[in-house]
């Protein structure tokens, strides 16, 4: 029983990380039809900025907050320089371009810091372990991740339902033509989507880095693929779907990790992607997505 509870917590934690990533992906996909593989690098750049700022003497908390802001800036630059000139290009062109941006960012970090893994340590209070009773414990960093994700998800929901800019974002993702006709400032909506997505990815990256105690330039690569699987499972382009898919995936991975015989845990990732392919073939719209996306 305690084992299951422990796994549940792990699944929740992993799902939270994926959710923070998946929201950004789904947001940008919904509006631009772009699968932004460079999103993984936004996850990576966050902790690296933190690392650099801590080295420069800032306390961790401040460094992390600044890093999130800086990552949002990277997101804006990404959009301005690589994606805006390609608005309206075929889907595959955009996808390939996002791969190029990903490679660019990865290697920029390699250029600056070298390719090796670096130790990454967060503040002391995140390094504790709390006992919840019944033999179940949770580390404070895991708790922090889950709470942070929850808080950000709530804030995000408020943003897209209560503010005009947020509602405009949902509208633009639904129907670009109508959004233009109604007079929504599409550029501003897109920039906002990147800021929000990048910010959340940075938070995920910093927290994840603290959790595993290390960072490296390619740390974002597999997480973004997983986050992408999450959006497909949950429903392509649907934000609640992306969040749902993220938690489903988180639990699934933990379940697979504990259930697969030892020695085959490396297949965990392969199984996740096999699942992706199955979903794409059997129910491409995912759990919550609708199959019809036209506005007519």
């Amino acid at each position, binding site marked *: 029983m305690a084992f299951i509870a422990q796994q549940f917590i792990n699944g929740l934690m992993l799902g939270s990380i994926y959710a923070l990533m998946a929201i950004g992906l789904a947001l940008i996909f919904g509006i631009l039809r772009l699968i932004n593989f460079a999103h993984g690098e936004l996850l990576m750049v966050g902790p690296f900025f933190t690392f650099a700022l801590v080295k420069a003497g800032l306390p961790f908390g401040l460094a992390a907050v600044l890093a999130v802001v800086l990552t949002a800036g990277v997101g804006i630059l990404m959009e301005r320089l690589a994606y805006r000139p390609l608005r309206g290009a075929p889907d595959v062109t955009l996808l390939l371009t996002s791969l190029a941006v990903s490679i660019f960012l990865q290697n920029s970090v390699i250029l600056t810091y070298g390719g090796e893994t670096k130790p990454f340590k967060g503040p002391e209070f995140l390094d504790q372990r709390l006992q919840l009773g019944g033999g179940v414990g949770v580390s404070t960093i895991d708790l922090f991740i889950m709470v942070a994700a929850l808080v950000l998800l709530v804030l995000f929901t408020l943003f897209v339902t209560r503010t*005009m800019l947020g*509602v*405009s974002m*949902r*509208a633009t993702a*639904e*129907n670009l*033509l*109508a*959004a*233009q*006709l*109604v*007079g*929504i*400032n*599409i550029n501003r909506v897109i920039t906002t989507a990147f800021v929000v997505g990048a910010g959340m990815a940075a938070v995920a990256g910093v927290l994840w880095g603290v959790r595993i105690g290390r960072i490296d330039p390619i740390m974002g690569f597999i997480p973004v693929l997983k986050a992408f699987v999450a959006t497909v499972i949950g429903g392509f382009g649907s934000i609640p779907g992306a969040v749902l898919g993220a938690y489903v995936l988180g639990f699934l991975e933990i379940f697979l990790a504990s259930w697969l015989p030892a020695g085959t845990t490396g297949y965990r990732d392969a199984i996740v992607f096999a699942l992706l392919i199955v979903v794409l073939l059997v129910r491409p719209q995912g759990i919550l997505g609708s199959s019809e996306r036209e*506005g*007519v």
Partner: protein
Amino acid sequence: MLQVQDLSVYYGGIQALKGISLEVRQGELLAIIGANGAGKTTTLRTISGILRPRSGSIRFDGKELTKLSPYDIVGLGIAHSPEGRQVFSGLTVAENLRLGAVQRRDPAEIDADLERVYTLFPRLKERSTQKAGTLSGGEQQMLAIGRALMARPRLLLLDEPSLGLAPLMVDRIFEVIARLKEEGSTILLVEQNAHMALEVADRAYVMETGRIKLSGPAAELAANADVERAYLGG
């Protein structure tokens, strides 16, 4: 108010508009009728800035529109209720309507306009918290028109409001359009249903394969033998 001159628009390699010219005068209801594919929707979309013309000009109160973005054009006071409604299905009726006023900065007036739209379309008020995608075709059409009205536009573009609607609904919609005209709105109406369009319009143009074939007062065109044969089933 609106002057279109020698407008040429291309879809890829095909010329959809072949140098058309038209004008909309303040306070009038101008109709453009014609068969499917004549270029009517293309005309409206070019006015709204969705499509860029290859040549020609569109002047709104003297201001040239052809280089402006849809965002700017809405800002100048042109609102567009598109062909096929194009409502935001996942958003509620109220959210859809409020988005019509997205560029406005006068909350009190926006609320007042919202009430006005609800008065015009009581059905929308009933369904104000429902998702727009669950509405019937006729209700979605009302929503699209209401949304455009929320911009308090100087010029209202209506694209095929009768498309796909039952005759009773069509009558209802056109009642509203007539009422808007009476209240002084300037409307550019594009319609396949020539009969209803000519009944409510002041003047009209007939478009055929990207060109303006005829123009004149609505009553005249309604009585025109060719028009009757081609578009009025006569």
